[in-house]
C-alpha cells in the first residue's frame, strides 16, 4: 500500500507556493523562479479502479460544483462528457481481449493531464488567464479568462469546457488549493482502492514501476506508464494494463502533442502576419514620400469643363 498523505492539522497554514512560482503565464512572459519546486504528479492506476465514482463526487464536493440531472443513454458514463462543472469523469470501456478471451472493463478517470508543455496555455490570448506553477500544476485564472475557447483548440486531450453561464473555461485544477497546503487532490483522498495516488513525480514513477511489475506478473505483458513525451510528460499519469494501446481506454491519445496547426497559428502566423501589415503600411508611406501626391492639374479641370460644355450645346 502506498502510504497515504496524513490528515492536515485544523490550524490554517500559509500556502506553500503562489504567484512567485510561475514558470509560464499565458500571453505574457515571466521571469522563472530561481528554484524550481519538486514536481508533483497524480498517478491513476486504471487496473485498480472499481468505477465507484467517489472521485467524481469528491471533485464536485471540494470545488463546490453541481452537475445538472442528465439522461441515461444506456452507459455508465455520467454525465456523458466533461462539462464546465464536471472536471473529472469516469469513462467506461468494455474491451474484449482477443489474446486471453476475457472481457475487460477498462475504467479511465478522464480530466486535465497537467502537461509539462501545455497546449491550452500556448493558445490562450488573455495575459495570465492560464498559468503553470513550477511544480507542474496548470491552472486557469478565471478573473482573466475571456471565454474565447482557444484553450480547447490548444489542448491535445480535449479537456477544457466553456461555461454558458459565465463564459469562462473550466477544468481540473489538480486541487491547487489543497496541494498548496500539503494535501493531495480531493479525488485522491476519496479513492477507496488507491487507484489514485498523489506525490512527487519521482515517487509516482517509482510506485508505477512497482504496479507495472505486479501487473506483468499477472499476465499483462504490455502493462506500462502513460506519461506521453509528446507534451514533455504530464503531471497526471496513468498505469495502463495495455500501455501499447492507449486508444482503447475511451480514446486516450496514443502519442499526444500540441497540434501543428496550433503551433503554426500561434507561432509563424503571429509574426509573419504583423510583419506583413507593417510592410504594407511602410510601402504606402515610402511610396508617398518618393512620388508625392497624385494631384489633379488645372489642365485636367479645363479638359473636363470643355467636355461638359459640349454636353450643353
Amino acid at each position, binding site marked *: 500500500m502506498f502510504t497515504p498523505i496524513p490528515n492536515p492539522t485544523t490550524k490554517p497554514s500559509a500556502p506553500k507556493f503562489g504567484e512567485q512560482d510561475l514558470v509560464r503565464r499565458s*500571453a*505574457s512572459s515571466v521571469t522563472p523562479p530561481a528554484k524550481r519546486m519538486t514536481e508533483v504528479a497524480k498517478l491513476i492506476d486504471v487496473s485498480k479502479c472499481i468505477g465507484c465514482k467517489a472521485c467524481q463526487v469528491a471533485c464536485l464536493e471540494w470545488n463546490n460544483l453541481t452537475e445538472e440531472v442528465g439522461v441515461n443513454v444506456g452507459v455508465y458514463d455520467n454525465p456523458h462528457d466533461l462539462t464546465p462543472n464536471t472536471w473529472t469523469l469516469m469513462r467506461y470501456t468494455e474491451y474484449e481481449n482477443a489474446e486471453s478471451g476475457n472481457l475487460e472493463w477498462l475504467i479511465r478517470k478522464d480530466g486535465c493531464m497537467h502537461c509539462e508543455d501545455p497546449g491550452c496555455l500556448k493558445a490562450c*490570448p*488573455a*495575459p495570465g488567464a492560464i498559468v503553470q506553477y513550477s511544480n507542474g500544476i496548470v491552472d486557469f485564472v478565471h478573473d*482573466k*479568462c*475571456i*471565454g*474565447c*475557447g*482557444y484553450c*480547447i*483548440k490548444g*489542448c491535445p486531450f*480535449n479537456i477544457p469546457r*466553456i461555461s*454558458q453561464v459565465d*463564459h469562462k473555461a473550466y477544468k481540473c485544477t489538480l486541487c491547487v488549493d489543497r496541494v498548496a497546503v500539503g494535501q493531495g487532490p480531493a479525488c485522491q483522498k476519496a479513492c477507496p482502492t488507491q487507484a489514485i495516488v498523489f506525490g512527487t513525480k519521482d515517487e509516482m514513477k517509482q510506485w508505477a514501476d512497482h504496479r507495472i511489475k505486479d501487473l506483468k506478473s499477472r499476465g499483462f505483458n504490455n502493462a506500462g506508464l502513460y506519461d506521453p513525451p509528446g507534451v514533455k510528460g504530464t503531471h497526471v499519469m496513468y498505469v495502463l494494463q495495455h500501455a501499447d494501446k492507449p486508444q482503447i481506454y475511451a480514446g486516450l491519445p496514443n502519442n499526444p502533442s500540441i*497540434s501543428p*496547426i*496550433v503551433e*503554426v*497559428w500561434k507561432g509563424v*502566423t*503571429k509574426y509573419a*502576419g*504583423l510583419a*506583413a*501589415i507593417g510592410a*504594407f*503600411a511602410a510601402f*504606402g508611406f515610402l*511610396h*508617398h514620400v518618393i*512620388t508625392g*501626391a*497624385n*494631384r*489633379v*492639374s*488645372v489642365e*485636367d*479641370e*479645363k*479638359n*473636363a*469643363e470643355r*467636355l*461638359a*460644355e*459640349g*454636353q*450643353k450645346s
Partner: protein
Amino acid sequence: MSRSEVDRGDDVSPGKPVVVHRYTAPARINHWVTAISLVLLALSGLALFSPSLYFLTGLFGGGQMTRFIHPWIGVVLFVSFLGLFFRFFRLNLWQKTDSVWLGRMREVLAGEEEKLPEVGKYNAGQKMVFWSMSLLILVLITSGVVVWDQYFGNYFTVEQKRVAVLIHSVTAIIAICVWIVHVYAAIWVRGTIGAMTKGQVTGGWAWRHHRKWLKELVASKN
C-alpha cells in the same frame, strides 16, 4: 466593350469646376457602415491575435466584451458588405483593358496616367480590392462561424475549429493588407475622399483618373 460604365445615380453638373456625382447617399452610408465595422473588427481581432496587442481589448470594454462583440460586428460587416457587393459588382467585372492597366504597374505607381488605357468607373486596382474583399469576407464569415463557440460550439469538431481559426487569422491579415492598399490609394490620389464623404468629385479628377466613365457620363446626358 459595349458595357455602359455609368451607374445609376451617376451625374455631372457643368460649371467651374465641373462637379461629378459618383456615389449616392445610400451607397455612402452603406460604405461607411462597412468601413467602421471593418476597422472595429480589425482592432478587436488583432487584440486576440497577438498578446502584444491585447491592450486593444480596452477599447471594447475588456477581454470578455471583445470576445462577445467581435463576431456580432462580423455579422454587421457581412450584411453591409453584401449590400456593397450588389451595388458595385457589375462595374467591377473584369475587362480586357484592366489587364493592360495592371500590366503597366510602373506607370500606375508613378502616377503617369496618360500612359494607361482610359479607365471606366473603376480601375483594375479598385476591381482587385473589390473582388479580393468579397472573397476574403466570405472566407472570414464562414471560418468565423466555426469558431463562434457561444452559439456554434457544438456543431464542429475541435480539429475543424483549429483549421478554421488558422484560416480566419491568415485571411484577416490579408484583408487588413488589402484595406491598407484601399485607404492609401484614396489618400494618395488627391480628391478621392470627397467621393465617399460628399458623393462628389471634380470633373478634373474624373478626367484624370476615370476618363472613360466621364466621357460616357457626359454622352449619356445628351
